[in-house]
C-alpha cells in the first residue's frame, strides 16, 4: 500500500502559540484514517492546513507525491481532494440537488458558462450522488430547511462530486443522533471501500472511530502522541491518560459533553 497523502513536520503558530507542532503522518491508499484527540488538540487546525484554508508556519504536505503546501483550497480540490467541515457550509439559497450540481459545474469547469440553465446541468449525476447518501427524495427541497444530519450527508455527497481520491472529513457526524452517526460512518466506510478512495477524518465519538477506522493517530496539544491500529490505540497508556484526564474516551454515545460542536 503506497501513501496518498504525506505530511511532514507540519507546524502552525498563532501569535507565537503553537497550535500544531511538528506533526507527521501519512494516509495510505484505500485507508480510513482517524485523527483523534481532545478538545483543542489541533485537529481542525491540522485539517485546515491540509487543504489550504490555513497556511502552515512550517512543514510540508504532499499529495500523490506532489507538494501542495500552501496551495489555496480550490486548487487542492482540483487535484482530487474532497472535504467536509465540522460546521456545515452548504448554500442555503439553493436546493439540495443544486448544491451538488454546483460542485459538478465547478468540476467540469463550467463556472463561466453564461448560457445554460444551471439547474438542468448534471442533474442526473447529482441525483445519483444523493442516492448514494440516501436522500434522493430531498433533492428539490431548499437546503436552508434541511435537518442537520441531512446537511452532513449532503456535504458528503458534495465532497464526492468530483470523484476525489482522498476525502478529508472534519467531524463528519458531529451534532447527529447516535443511530444516525453509526449509519453515516458505515456509509462513508462503504463508499471508501467501493470507490477505492482514502479518507482522513476526525471524530469525537470513539465508538464510531473504533468501529470503522483502519488506523488512528492521536493528537494532543498539537503533537502526535500515538499512532497505530485500533487495538494499539485502545491500549496505549498515554492515550488513556489524555482521555481519562479529559474524561471523554469512552463517553456516552451522544458525545455532547465535550462541547466542541455546541456552537455548530
Amino acid at each position, binding site marked *: 500500500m503506497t501513501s496518498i497523502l504525506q505530511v511532514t513536520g507540519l507546524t502552525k503558530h498563532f501569535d507565537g502559540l503553537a497550535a500544531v507542532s511538528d506533526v507527521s503522518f501519512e494516509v495510505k491508499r484505500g485507508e480510513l484514517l482517524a485523527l483523534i484527540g481532545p478538545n483543542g488538540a489541533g485537529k481542525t487546525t491540522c485539517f485546515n492546513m491540509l487543504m489550504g484554508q490555513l497556511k502552515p508556519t512550517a512543514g510540508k504536505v504532499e499529495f500523490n507525491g506532489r507538494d501542495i503546501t500552501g496551495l489555496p483550497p*480550490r486548487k487542492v*480540490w482540483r487535484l482530487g481532494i474532497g472535504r467536509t467541515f465540522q460546521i456545515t457550509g452548504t*448554500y442555503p*439559497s*439553493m436546493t439540495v440537488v*443544486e448544491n451538488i450540481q*454546483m460542485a459538478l*459545474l465547478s468540476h467540469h469547469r463550467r463556472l463561466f458558462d453564461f448560457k445554460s440553465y444551471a439547474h438542468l*446541468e448534471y442533474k442526473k449525476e447529482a441525483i445519483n450522488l444523493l442516492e448514494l447518501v440516501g436522500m434522493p427524495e430531498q433533492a428539490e427541497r431548499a437546503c436552508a430547511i434541511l435537518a442537520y444530519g441531512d446537511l452532513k450527508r449532503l456535504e458528503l455527497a458534495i465532497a464526492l*462530486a468530483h470523484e476525489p481520491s482522498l476525502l478529508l472529513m472534519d467531524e463528519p457526524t458531529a451534532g447527529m443522533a447516535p443511530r444516525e452517526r453509526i449509519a453515516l460512518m458505515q456509509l462513508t466506510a462503504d463508499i471508501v471501500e467501493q470507490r477505492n478512495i482514502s479518507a482522513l477524518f476526525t471524530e469525537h465519538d470513539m465508538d464510531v472511530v473504533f468501529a470503522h477506522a483502519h488506523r488512528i493517530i492521536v493528537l494532543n496539544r498539537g503533537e502526535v502522541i500515538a499512532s497505530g491500529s485500533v487495538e494499539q490505540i485502545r491500549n496505549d497508556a498515554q492515550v488513556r491518560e489524555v482521555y481519562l484526564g479529559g474524561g471523554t474516551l469512552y463517553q456516552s454515545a451522544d458525545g455532547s459533553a465535550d462541547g466542541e460542536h455546541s456552537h455548530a
Partner: protein
Amino acid sequence: MGLIFAQLLTGLANAAALFLVASGLSLIFGVTRIVNFSHGSFYMLGAFIGYSLMQVLPGAIGFWSSVLLAGVAVGIIGVIVEILVLRPVYKAPELFQLVATFGVILVIQDLALLIWGAEDVLGPRAPGLKGIVRIMGEPVPKFDLALIAITPFVLFALWYLLTKTRVGILVRAATQDREMVGALGVNQAWLFTGVFFLGAALAGLGGAIQLPKGGADLLMDFTILASIFVVVVIGGMGSLPGAYIAAVLISVLNVFGVSYLPQSTLVLMFVVMAVVLTIRPYGLLGREEKAGEHGQVGEPELPIKPASLTIRLLVLALIALLACLPFVAPSFFTILATDVIVFCLFAASLHFILGLGGLVSFGHAAFFGTGAYVAALLVTYVGTPMELAFLLAPVGAFLLAIIIGWLCLRLSGVYFAMLTLALAQLVWSLVFQWDDFTGGDDGLVDIWPSAWLRDTTSYFYFTMVIGIGGILFLRHLAHSPFGYALRASRDSARQAEATGIHTKRIQWVSFAIAGALAGVAGALFVFSKGSVFPVELEIAKSFDGLIVVFLGGVKTLSGGVVGAAALTLVQDYITRFEYWRLALGLLIILVVIIAPNGIVGSLRKLAHWLPFGRSKST
C-alpha cells in the same frame, strides 16, 4: 514655523465637530450594525436647535447649555426615530435599515424647512471667546483653542463610559457579539435605543458646537455625510479613538492641502481614505471583519427557478402593453417610461451584485456616470456617431469596474461598501475638477441621438430593446452556472473555495458585468437627456440605486426592477406637491415598516399567505 503651528491648530479645531458627529455614527454602527444615512440630519438638527436655544438663553452659560441641550434634544429625536422607524425592521435583511434612514432624511429636510425657513442662519459667537490670541505671532481664534481642549475631553468621557461602566461594557460586548448580550438577559432593544440616543446626541452636539465657526443651513445634512463616513472608515468602524485620529488626520491634512495644493480640496479626503484602506483594510484601529461574523439577518433566500410559462407570458404581455404606450398615451408617458426603463436597468445591475453576489456597493453610480460620460466625451471631442459611442460606453464602465473591483474586492461587508464609495467619489471629483475636459459642473451638453432615433417614440423603443434586453440578460445570468457560482460565493465562500470556485474572481467578473450594464444605462440616459453632469456619479445617485434595490427586495430576482419602477413613478407624481420630500419620506418609511422584505419579497409572502396563490417565481 509659527504659521505651520497655527495651521496645525486650525486643523485640530476643525477636527472637533467632525469627530463628534463621526463618533456617533461609529457607535451606532458598531452596536446596531445600522448604516445610518440620516446621521447628517441629526447634525443639521443639532445646529438649528442649538441656534434657536442660543437666541433665548443669554451669556456664556446660555451658550454652553444650549450646546448641551441641543445634544440632548437631538438624542431624543434619535430615540424617536429608533423606536418608530428602526425597531420594526431590525429583523429585515442586513443594511435594509438604511432605506428607512433615507426616508428619515427626507422627512427631516422638509420639517427643518417648515420650522426654520429657507434662509441660512449664522451661528452666534461664543460669549467670551470672540477674539484671538497670538501664538508665535500668528492669530489663533480663542474658540478654536476651546474646541481643541474640549474634544479630547469628550473622547475621554466616551472612553470612560464605554470601558468603566456597566452600560459601557454591555455596549462593547454588543459590538462584539449581539447574541451574547441577549443571552446575558439584557434587553437588546433598549440597549440599541440607548446607543441611538448617545449617537444622535453626539451628532447634535457636533452641529451645535460648530455654530460659532459657521451656522446652520438646509444643505448641511448632506455636505457632512461623506466626510463622516470617511472618518469612520479611516478610523475603523466602531472605534472611537480611531474616529478621533482620523478626524484629526483628515482635518490637519486638509489645512495643509488648502495652503499648498488649493485645488486638492475635493479629492484629498478620498485619496487619504483609499490609501489608508489599501494599507490597512479595516481602518487605522478597526477590527478585521470576518465574513458572516454577524450572521445573515432575516430568513434565507428561497431557491430560484427560471420563470414559469405563465409568468413568461405575463411578462411578455406587459412588454407588449408597454410597446403600445406611444399609441395610447400622451407622449410624455413615453418619456417617463424611458426614464423608468433606464433606472430599472441601473437598479437591476446593482441588484445583480448586491442581491446575488452579496456585494453591497455604495458607489454604483460611478459606472452609470462613466457610461454616460464616455458616450458624451466621444460625441463631444471625436464626433463619434451615437451608435459607436453607445457601444464604447459600457466598455469604459467595464474597464473602470475592473479597476475598482480589483481594489475593493480584497475587502468585504461594510468595508467593501465604504471603499466603493470612496473610489466612486474619486471618479466624481475627477470629472468635477477636470473641467477643461469634462466641462466640470457645467457638464457636457448637446449629446443627442442619431437621426433615426431623434424622435421620442423611436428612442423609447430603442430604450425598451436595450434596457429590457439588459434586464433579461441579467436575469438569465442569475440562472446560469455563473450566477449560481456567484450565489455560492455569497452563501458560503469557504464551501465554494473548497469546491474549486475562485470566489474573488467570480465576484470580480460579476462586478465588471454589473458595471458594464450600469454603463449601458448611463449611455441610454445621456442620449435621452441630451446632457450629462457630475450629479450622475454622485453619492446621491448611488444611494438612489441602493434604496430601490432594498425597497424592491434584495432577496428576490425582480426586486431591483420593481423598486426602481415604483420609486420613479411615485417620485414623478409626488414631486408635483409642495412638501413632497415629507410625503415621500413618510411613504418610504411606511413601505419599509409594512414590507420589511421589500415590495416583491413581501408581496410574495402575502401571496403565500393568501389561499389563491403560491406563485413561486418572482
